[in-house]
């Protein structure tokens, strides 16, 4: 495959998960060896990684200068290092306190540290791997503002992302990858989100299910909920989810969503009350660790969580026939692509694994569904299917609590939106009266 990025250009690399974007970025940076072919760059290459690679217990300047500390005899020249960081921050318009400890900084500021560390080497090529995954909308704008300035000064920028709106807003050219190959190049000015999305999935996106009118009545109630500790604690949260309604919790990662989800799932102790009127289906955040047994077959995984229900339980024994029939039903309903029901789930793609998890959680028509980032890291097609099934569950009278870091997902699916910031609900919107900008501000902590 061939890809070129010009000096002064912001080039977007998009594709579904598993399309090979991160591999390509790794090869360009030099951390992954190519099987064949060459990479050339006119100067040094910097990489800002999706998951920050910072030392939390060190100060900002120590992180930025790590490995390249100016010396004075045997010692690190602290003053020179601090001055260098301050100068770097000023020149790039990224204000920062060089003496702050990294783990005490907000996510958006940590990103700034990560970026400054790469800029210190004055790279001629800058690779950004999903740089905005953990940022609030306002932080995203500020971040790209900096990147645009960098490009204007002649740096070639390659952004790996799956957020198409960012691509449209900030890039000059777009390259689309699918199954490890480049399938399309676009001039951003001459394309649209729809066209890029079609190239990513190789066809039209499946339509998301229509929402039907429902007769809401309270099903899930949380009141005066306190749980967790320190940064991710939740304090005094109260809300209700009615049958036939999807309530979306919007917020930037790390504002107490995990604590809330764990409390609702009964996985951690809490103060306050949680009332769930009926059986619950839980779609946890981390399918690898929290939902699936990777070495097990689809049949065994489809059973997990239901092993005590009378349907599959005969005294001490499991009814393998019912388990297999149920697995088949789940696979059919969620369109899980698999050779047989006996293959290990680790051989399935992330999207198919997630479809299995969702199908299992929705099996037996739960009255309450908790979905925590149900489409994270899966391809657009699978994501649309998952969202459709959630809406269908809602249409069927289930109360659905959707916690997601993707505001677009919440806007697409939820009937009512709550905004979470620092462990509290800071705003509420009806679907009809959504104000995206206000939600974005609330997510970032301003009013």
């Amino acid at each position, binding site marked *: 495959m061939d890809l070129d990025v010009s000096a002064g250009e912001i080039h977007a690399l998009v594709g579904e998960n598993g399309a090979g974007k991160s591999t390509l970025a790794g090869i360009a940076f030099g951390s992954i060896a190519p099987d064949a072919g060459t990479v050339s760059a006119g100067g040094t290459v910097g990489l800002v990684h999706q998951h920050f690679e910072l030392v939390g217990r060190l100060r900002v300047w120590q992180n930025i200068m790590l490995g390249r500390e100016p010396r004075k005899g045997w010692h690190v020249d602290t003053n020179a290092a601090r001055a260098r960081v301050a100068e770097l921050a000023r020149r790039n318009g990224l204000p920062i306190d060089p003496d702050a400890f990294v783990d005490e900084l907000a996510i958006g500021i940590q990103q700034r540290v990560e970026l400054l560390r790469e800029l210190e080497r004055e790279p001629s090529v800058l690779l950004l791997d999903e740089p905005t995954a953990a940022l609030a909308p306002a932080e995203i704008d500020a971040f790209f503002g900096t990147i645009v300035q960098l490009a204007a000064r002649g740096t070639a920028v390659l952004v790996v992302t799956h957020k198409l709106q960012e691509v449209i807003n900030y890039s000059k050219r777009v390259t689309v990858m699918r199954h490890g190959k480049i399938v399309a190049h676009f001039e951003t000015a001459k394309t649209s989100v729809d066209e890029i999305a079609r190239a990513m999935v190789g066809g039209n996106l499946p339509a998301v299910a229509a929402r039907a009118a429902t007769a809401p009545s309270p099903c899930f109630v949380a009141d005066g909920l306190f749980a967790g500790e320190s940064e991710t604690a939740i304090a005094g949260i109260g809300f209700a989810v009615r049958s036939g309604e999807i309530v979306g919790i919007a917020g930037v990662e790390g504002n107490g969503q995990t604590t809330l989800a764990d409390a609702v*799932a009964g*996985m951690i102790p809490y103060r306050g009350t949680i009332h769930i009127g009926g059986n619950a289906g*839980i779609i*946890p955040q981390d399918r690898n*660790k*929290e*939902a*699936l*047994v*990777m*070495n*097990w077959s689809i049949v*065994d995984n489809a*059973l*997990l*969580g*239901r*092993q*005590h229900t009378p349907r599959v*339980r005969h005294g*001490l*024994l*499991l009814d*393998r026939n019912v388990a297999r029939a149920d697995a088949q039903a789940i696979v059919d309903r969620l369109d899980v692509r698999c050779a047989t029901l006996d293959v290990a789930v680790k051989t399935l793609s992330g999207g198919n694994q997630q479809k299995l998890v969702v199908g299992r959680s929705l099996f037996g028509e739960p009255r309450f569904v908790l979905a925590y980032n149900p489409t994270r890291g899966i391809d657009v097609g699978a994501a649309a299917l998952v969202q459709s099934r959630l809406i269908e569950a809602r249409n069927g009278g289930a109360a659905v609590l959707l916690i997601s870091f993707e505001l677009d997902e919440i806007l697409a699916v939820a009937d009512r939106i709550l905004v979470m910031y620092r462990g509290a609900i800071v705003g509420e919107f009806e679907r009809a009266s959504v104000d995206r900008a206000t939600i974005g501000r609330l997510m970032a902590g301003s009013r």
Partner: protein
Amino acid sequence: MNAYRRLFSGPLGAIAIAVALAALAMIVAGVSPIAGFSALFGGALGGTSNIAETLVQTTALLFPALGITLAFRGGLFNIGAEGQLLIGGLAAGAVGAHLHAPTAVAAVVLLGLGAIAGGVWGGLAGWMKAYFNANEIISTLMLNFVAAALASYLVVGPLRSPQATGAETAPLPHSAWLPLIVPDTRLSISILVAVALAFLLRFVLTRTIFGYELRAVGEAPEAARRNGVQMRRMTWLTLALSGAISGLGGATIVTGVMHTFNTELSPGYGFTAIAVALVGDLDPLWVCVAAFGFGILESGGLAMQAVAQVPKDAIHVIEGCIILILAARRYVATRTESAPV
């Protein structure tokens, strides 16, 4: 087919490498490997009495290996089988010496007592793990020393038979001896119990809700916890059952082989059994096969020493190599799986 390949790339490969290393060691020591191994296999499998003795060793290894298999499948590293074996034997010996009952009744009572005692010993580590988060590797290992010290104290002191020359309990009455399968050998019906237990264990692991949940905890504890498995109960129950199986094994050695109890009950069966369980790939039926293989090594080793002048310790070299290779393989497998893509 796949399972076969996995077995060959793992346990069988390890055995092949270990045998090759042992052959090399024999050459270095100036002994013909052919003579050494023929003495080994002749001593283990040549004639009825040798085969019977090999099966006695097989049985002694099989019980703790099955107990370890259960714990390992549940994600718990029970390395306290040695102590659980000893405590099971102690319970059977202490009560058996004074039990005058028909053989069937005595067998059920004594084997049951052994299982209960071993279960308490394993369950103790399980309880500490479940409620105080005490690492089971440390606690089961330490309980081995406690068991050994307790057994020594009891056979030297309160339980010592006045008639005996050494430190041991009073002999079991003949009615409490397990019936022999082959006359004039030491092979009792305990091997049938062990093999039946292996089948039962396989059934429990694959067909019951308990086995399903146990495997879930072993493979993916967080997924199990979030899907209705009561983790504390599972932890202590797994270690208690694991200990019970080893304890049962200890009781069969007392009632079937020794007919008394002393601290010579196990020359390290509980530790060798860890290798047996791993070579058997933690599948109860393959563990039976592995136990037979190790039984050959244990019983043939003496013959090898006597006939071919290869020190019996060469057997331990083979066992050690198998354990090292299997442990390394597991380590490599984990590393490869968790490596960033």
